[in-house]
């Protein structure tokens, strides 16, 4: 029997107001231990305020080959990007 633990992906919120960001992975027997290990491994220098762990096997990823069909529709919606809007330079705080 293999004694190696499953892999978990770790996401950390660096500070309040930010998204959780993927920081790496680790091995753990279960979710509770994974959370604790993530705290020990990835926040040794107080990097985090909140941690998510997800079994790596549970992640469904888009494949790079699908990139065109998957993301192109948002790539051409340029109005979603702030730089689309030309604002006169003298207008402050925008």
């Amino acid at each position: 029997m293999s004694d190696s633990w499953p892999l978990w992906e770790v996401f950390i919120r660096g500070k309040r107001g930010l998204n959780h960001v993927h920081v790496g992975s680790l091995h753990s027997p279960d979710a509770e231990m994974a959370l604790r290990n993530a705290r020990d491994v990835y926040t040794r220098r107080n990097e985090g305020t909140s941690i998510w762990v997800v079994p790596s096997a549970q992640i469904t990823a888009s494949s790079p080959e699908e990139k065109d069909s998957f993301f192109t529709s948002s790539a051409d919606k340029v109005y979603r990007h702030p730089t689309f809007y030309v604002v006169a330079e003298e207008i402050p705080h925008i």
Partner: protein
Amino acid sequence: MTDTAATEAGLEAEFEARIAADERIEPRDWMPEGYRRTLVRQMSQHAHSEIIGMQPEAEWIGCAPSLRRKAILLAKVQDEAGHGLYVYSAIETLGVDRAELTERLLAGEQRYSALFDHPVRTYADVGTIAWLGDGAAICLQVPACRASYGPYARAMFRICKEESFHHRQGYELLTAMMRGTAEQRAMVQESLERWWWPTMMMFGPPNARSTHTERSMRWRIKRVTNDEMRQQFVDMAAPQAEALGVRPPDPALRWNPEREHYDYTDPDWADFERLISGDGPLRAQRIAHRERVHREGAWVREAALAYARRNEGAEVGA
């Protein structure tokens, strides 16, 4: 040309274009088998070095000569475990898991830095390993933060940030010792003499003899040649040694104003070949330690898995 071959060629062209544009390769991108193999080889050597490298320093935590030094050394060795883990984690994205890597290390199929096959004889060595060994590691690792493989580059960035503490605390320890007794100053000099050449070897064989450099450079897994990194290291370490009041065991070591670099002697490459082929003084001991720890921990890992499986079953049933 068959369809598959045509697709393959297209993918390879896309891959090469991405590399040429200095874009990162990410786990699910198509990549040539050689690229994947080279990554696994280089990254596993790094990860194993971190984990094996814990051993020589861990031996000195117990007798560290002040409580502050004890805390620093324990935190440093702990970081090495963390760094090994970050890199193993990056290798997993290539579909090779840690258990397999551990097996290949124990079977002697994968290497780790021969630096750790040398014994740590005095507490000055603890400082020297950090100053020179981690100093060399920084020269090797900072360029790797720009490596073409995304997960590796990201792991290296995190490691480099933490590594600077290792380097500095080592130099600080040696500075304190140089301000101490004559016996301590002699210890530092003697330690430098033993560790200088093994550290110089950390950068690998000279460019002309390096079998991997050309391809690794082209794929941007490696960004600076062995000789360039060695020169960088010497340029960094030589003035630091002078400030410390110690002399590296290289009579040719001197500033060359024309080149604006230090001149130095290469390590003995025959000795290097012998060491990396597994003939280092403590090689067998290091591998045996890792093997024993892994074996003795098996029942703990099994128990945790058994518990997790049982609980999963319970949840499904509930």
